[in-house]
């Protein structure tokens, strides 16, 4: 595939954004006040920093997400050739998924998926 097409796409993309924002900057009426710069938080005045320490519970979800993320990577080439290879590919992927399903059951059983 043409990398030239990619370059063209890139340039056109940049061009569009530059044109759109500069037209808006030229013609739009402008007013500014401190409230406009506030992050919108359901009408409540935001206080403190947004970067605060999170609960450790999130990390377990992130790890489990990452593992299934890696699993998906292996299933992509499988999905591409599944139709061509037929039953063999299906059984192989089934074994793969069952083994990972055990992991999901384990996580479920250990209440790793429960929010506390």
């Amino acid at each position: 595939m043409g990398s030239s097409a990619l370059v063209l796409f890139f340039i056109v993309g940049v061009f569009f954004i530059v044109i759109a924002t500069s037209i808006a900057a030229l013609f739009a009426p402008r007013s500014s006040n401190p409230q406009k710069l506030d992050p919108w938080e359901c009408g409540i005045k935001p206080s403190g920093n947004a970067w605060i320490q999170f609960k450790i519970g999130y990390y377990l979800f992130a790890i489990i997400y990452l593992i299934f993320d890696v699993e998906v990577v292996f299933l992509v080439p499988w999905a591409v050739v599944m139709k061509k290879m037929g039953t063999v590919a299906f059984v192989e992927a089934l074994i793969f998924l069952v083994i990972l399903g055990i992991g999901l059951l384990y996580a479920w059983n250990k209440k790793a998926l429960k929010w506390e």
Partner: protein
Amino acid sequence: MGAQIMFYILATVIVVFSFLAVTSRKVMRATVYLLFVLLATAGLYFIIDYNFMAGIQLIVYAGGIVALIVFAVMLTEKIGDKIESPSNMQMILAGLISIAGAGVTISVLLGHDFKQSTQNIGQNVATIGENLLNYGKDGYVLPFEVVSILLLASMIAAIVVAKRKFEN
């Protein structure tokens, strides 16, 4: 020609954001700069038509690993604070080590005689899939299944470790 222009754009992005990632004094910003580095690396794979590798780069690295790093950063205390600047001594030492590392890498790269590969390395996702699921002589079905056991083991290990920390 187009590939070359794209390469230079992506290389600039990688260099600039890598530099920002290591010089940023706010750890959350450094993480986001790292995300851009990983995305641009995926772009490099796309240029050489290595679509599957680029997909992995986007899904696992830009998606998974960065999410994990963001969560890890969010768990630390004082994320919002600026990290102190390193002392001059640290800067000089780190600079010297970086220059030495870059020198070794560049000299090895320049000394190596790169040959254009003529054999099919299986860039195609379909080729990769066929090799992965083939149980014949050239197949990799055993590693494919072993990977699932490896993932299972890492998931159980993660849960065991994390759950024990919860109870304390």
